[in-house]
């Protein structure tokens, strides 16, 4: 009986049909176990922070200040470019979404199934996380939310063998799909003919075609292109720009499906967010 039940559950889960309340309750039940497993490491980092010396903190502060200044300068230019872009798009008659609000989530240090690339983050449905929400870090796209619990969520990385993300070559706009390989430093581009104009070092950005990931975020950089007259397609490997094996905090893009639908119609254009003075 129980065997049948578990087979039924597996089939449902594979087809994404497990009722949300069931999943929610189960996730809430195991949350304490996760916290307990994470606790010693959390304590370790808290202690390290508390005990770090004044000199070290000052050095870090200085470094961060310098970086902030640099970023702000870049941001000024970006604001101008953004406004220009919106004006141009207005002329073309399509809407453009910029400045998606983000949510910062800490990583929980627990080990999940070692044969798939999953990470656990410390924000859940209560904080507005939803399934298939795009996840980024400072350098690029990390993955998407696979399972969301009340207080934590599991994120599938773009390098997971079962994950694929639509991308575009930044240089010339050639579209492809980047599929995970199971190696945390490698993605595979599919269906690129042998004569495609793609070179080592090309930046791949998300094309936003699947409607899941926001467009224009860096995904990977082409690492090797092997053209072989035998097979029909070139073998293109790329390295993710996000540091997938050294993540500490991730950003979740707060964007619902509605925005995707809006983007295709041109009824309304959001005003650009005003220049915000640095904090």
């Amino acid at each position, binding site marked *: 009986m*129980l*065997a049948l*039940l*578990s*087979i*039924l*559950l*597996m089939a*449902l*889960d*594979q087809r994404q049909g*497990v009722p949300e309340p069931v*999943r929610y309750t*189960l*996730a809430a*039940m*195991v949350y304490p*176990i*996760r916290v*307990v*497993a994470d606790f010693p*490491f959390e304590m370790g980092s808290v202690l390290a922070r508390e005990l770090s010396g004044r000199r070290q903190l000052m050095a870090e502060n200085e470094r961060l200040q310098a970086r902030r200044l640099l970023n702000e300068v870049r941001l000024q230019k970006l604001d101008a470019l953004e406004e220009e872009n919106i004006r141009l798009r207005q002329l073309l008659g399509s809407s453009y979404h910029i400045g998606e609000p983000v949510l910062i989530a800490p990583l929980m*240090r*627990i*080990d*999940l*199934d*070692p*044969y*798939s690339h*999953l990470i*656990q983050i410390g924000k859940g449905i209560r904080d507005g996380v939803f399934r298939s929400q795009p996840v980024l870090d400072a350098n690029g796209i990390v993955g998407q939310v*696979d*399972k969301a619990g009340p207080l934590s969520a*599991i994120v599938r990385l773009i390098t997971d*063998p*079962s994950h694929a993300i639509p991308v575009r070559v930044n240089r010339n706009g050639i579209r492809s799909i980047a599929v995970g390989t*199971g190696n945390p430093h490698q993605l595979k581009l599919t269906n690129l003919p042998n004569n495609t104009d793609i070179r080592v070092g090309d930046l791949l950005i998300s094309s936003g075609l699947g409607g899941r990931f926001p467009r224009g975020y860096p995904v990977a950089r082409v690492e090797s292109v092997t053209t072989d007259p035998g097979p029909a397609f070139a073998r293109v490997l790329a390295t993710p720009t996000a540091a997938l094996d050294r993540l500490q905090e991730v950003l979740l893009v707060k964007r619902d499906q509605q925005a995707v639908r809006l983007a295709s119609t041109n009824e309304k254009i959001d005003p650009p967010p005003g220049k915000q003075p640095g904090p």
Partner: protein
Amino acid sequence: MRAHSAARIILLSLLAGLVLTVLPLPMWARPLRPEWTALILIYWCMALPQRVGVTVAWTVGLLQDVLQGFLLGAHALAFGVVAFLTLKLHQRIRVFPLWQQALSTLLLLLVIRLILLWVRGLSGQPGADWQYWLPALTGTALWPPLFLGLRAVRRRFQVQ
């Protein structure tokens, strides 16, 4: 009163197993991580078959699925089957010397790995390499100390 605390001890040991299952390990040690919960379940099924059976194993397996982000029900199925086998054989395994017990545990752990491999294959995940079978070996190696430890706990708290 006695029954209450016995259930609590068993529950605590299983929860400890779950925590050990997700405790972060360095990269090189991750393929070596034994199936803690399965080992603890096998012990209780063998020592107290009237208390811990297929239902408990199934529930713990389900929790582990949620915890690890695995396909829901895979560990539940595997643990349920192994608990059933242990219940069938517990009269015999109980009187074995420790090393023979460890060998039968190896078989049970291999059954778990095999069921999980089938589930993986059926759900379209890529096949596994030789490292996939290592947890069964480390689990076997850990069986004697685990058995002695849990027996000491059982006698100390008179779990029946």
